[in-house]
C-alpha cells in the first residue's frame, strides 16, 4: 500500500488542514495516523489518489514524502547519516540518496531511497517511521 508522510511539529497538528485540502480535490483518506516524537510529528496517510494527494499537499507548502522513500529515526550525532548509509550498503543494498528531513529532540529523521526498500525496512525494524 502506498503511504504519504507529512512532516510537521506536534503543535501544528495539520490534520484539519490536510483533510480540507484533500477533500477539496475529491481525494479520500483511507487511513490516517498522527505520531509525535517530542516536538516533532509525522502524519501518515493512505489515500485514494496517491499522486494527486502528494502534488496537492506539496503545493500547499507541506513537506511530504511517499513510502517509495524509507524514513528512519537515528540518533543525532556527527556522521549519523553516513553510518546509516554504511549499514545499508554493507547488506548489499544500493543507496540512491540519503537526506536529512528533520532534526529535533528525538533525533534525526532520515529519508533514504534505495534499490531494496523492503530490505531496508527489515534491516532497521523499529527505527522505520513509515
Amino acid at each position, binding site marked *: 500500500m502506498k503511504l504519504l508522510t507529512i512532516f510537521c511539529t506536534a503543535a501544528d497538528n495539520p490534520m484539519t488542514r490536510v483533510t480540507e485540502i484533500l477533500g477539496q480535490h475529491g481525494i479520500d483518506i483511507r487511513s490516517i495516523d498522527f505520531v509525535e516524537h517530542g516536538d516533532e510529528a509525522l502524519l501518515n496517510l493512505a489515500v485514494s489518489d496517491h499522486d494527486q494527494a502528494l502534488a496537492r499537499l506539496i503545493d500547499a507548502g507541506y513537506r511530504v514524502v511517499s513510502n517509495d522513500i524509507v524514513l528512519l529515526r537515528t540518533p543525532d550525532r*556527527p*556522521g549519523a547519516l553516513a*553510518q546509516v*548509509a554504511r549499514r545499508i550498503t554493507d547488506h548489499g543494498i544500493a543507496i*540512491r*540518496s*540519503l*537526506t536529512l528531513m528533520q532534526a529535533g529532540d528525538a533525533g534525526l529523521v532520515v529519508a533514504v531511497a534505495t534499490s531494496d526498500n523492503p530490505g531496508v525496512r527489515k534491516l532497521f525494524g523499529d527505527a522505520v517511521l513509515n
Partner: protein
Amino acid sequence: MSGRDDDSGGGPLLPAADRQRLRDFYAYLRQQAALLAGYPVAQDFDYDELKPLLDYSLNNVGDPFSGSTCKIDSREFEREALEFWARQMRAPAGDWWGYVTNGGTEGNLYGLYLARELHPQGIVYYSQHTHYSVAKSLHFLNMRNIMIRSQPNGEMDYADLRETLKVNRDVPPIIFANIGTTMTEARDDLGEINSILDELAVPKRYIHSDAAMCGAIAPFLDRRPRFDFADGADSIAISGHKFIGSPMPCGIVLARRSHVNRIASAIAYIGNLDTTVTGSRNGHTPMFMWYAVKRFGEPGFRERVQRSLALAERAVRSLKAAGIDAWRNPDAITVVFPEVSQALQHRRQLATAYGISHVIVMPHMDEPYIDALVAEIAADLENRR
C-alpha cells in the same frame, strides 16, 4: 523588431488589446521591481546600448572557444567576460575553461556532471541548506549522495562532514560547497574542507563551488573567503542575474581545463568535442556579462559590494534598535530576521523558510530605501507580537 526603446507596446504588429496588455505589464513590473527586497536581483544595470542586438538571433552554439560556421554569435565577447571572471576566481593560467550558462543551476549541473565523469563511483556530499535545485540535478545525473548537517548559520557542519567521510573512505568524495546559501548567505570554507580531506588522506576528490550568490561578491571582499580555484575548487558556478545584473537569467561556469579535456576525449566518438550542457546557447546574455565587466571592472564591482555591505549593516543595526533579532553572516549582504507576515512576504517578495525571512541588499538600494524597508519590517513584527 525595430529595437525601439519606448514602451509603446510593440507597434502595429500586435492587436490593440495585446498592446494594452503589454503596457499594463510594463506598469506592473515597474511597481513590483521597486518593492522587491527578498531576492538577490541587482537592478542597477543599464543595457540600453545593447538594445540594437535584440534585432539579431544571437546563438553561441557549442564551445565558446571553438570556431563555428554560424557568424551570428557573440563568442568573442563571451570569452572576454569569461577571462575576467576566471581571473577573479584565480583560475590556473592556461588550465581553465568555461561558458555562459542559463543560470546557476546549469552551472551546478555541469560541475556535477564533470565530477561524475571523473569519479563515476563518487558520492556527492552536500549540506542541508543547499539550494533545492541540487537534489534535482543529482537525481537527473543519477549520482549517489549524502546530506551533511548545517550549522545554525547555514554553513556546513565540518564535524559531520569529517565523520561522514570516515564512514565511506573507500569512495571518492565529491563535495558540493555552498558559497552563499539561499537563506543566510553562509559560505562553506574550502580550507576547512580540504584540511579534513588531507587529514583523512583522501587521494581522489572533487570540489564544486556553488557561488551563484557570492561569486560576484567574494573576490571583492576585504576578507576574501576560501572558495575558488586557488583554494582547491575544481569547478565554480556563478549567477549573472543576481549580483552582476541581467534582464535575462544567466550564469557563468568555470572548470579546470584538464578535467574538461578528459570528458571531451570520452565523447569524441560523437564527432563533437563540445561539452556544454545545451547545444544552442543564448548569445545575448554573454553580451550583458561583457558589458557589466567593461562598465564596472574590478573597481566598480568592489564599490558595489562595499556599498551593499554598508547598507546591510545599517539594516541590521536599525532592526536591532527596534528590538528585532536581526543578524547577518560575516561580510554578507543578506539580513536575516524572524519570519514576517504573509502579507509583507508577498508585498516585498521576501523569501521565508525555517522560521526566518530575509532581505538581500542589492547595489541599486540606498539609505532611504533601506530605512523605509526596515520601518515596514519593524511594524509588521511588532503587530505579530
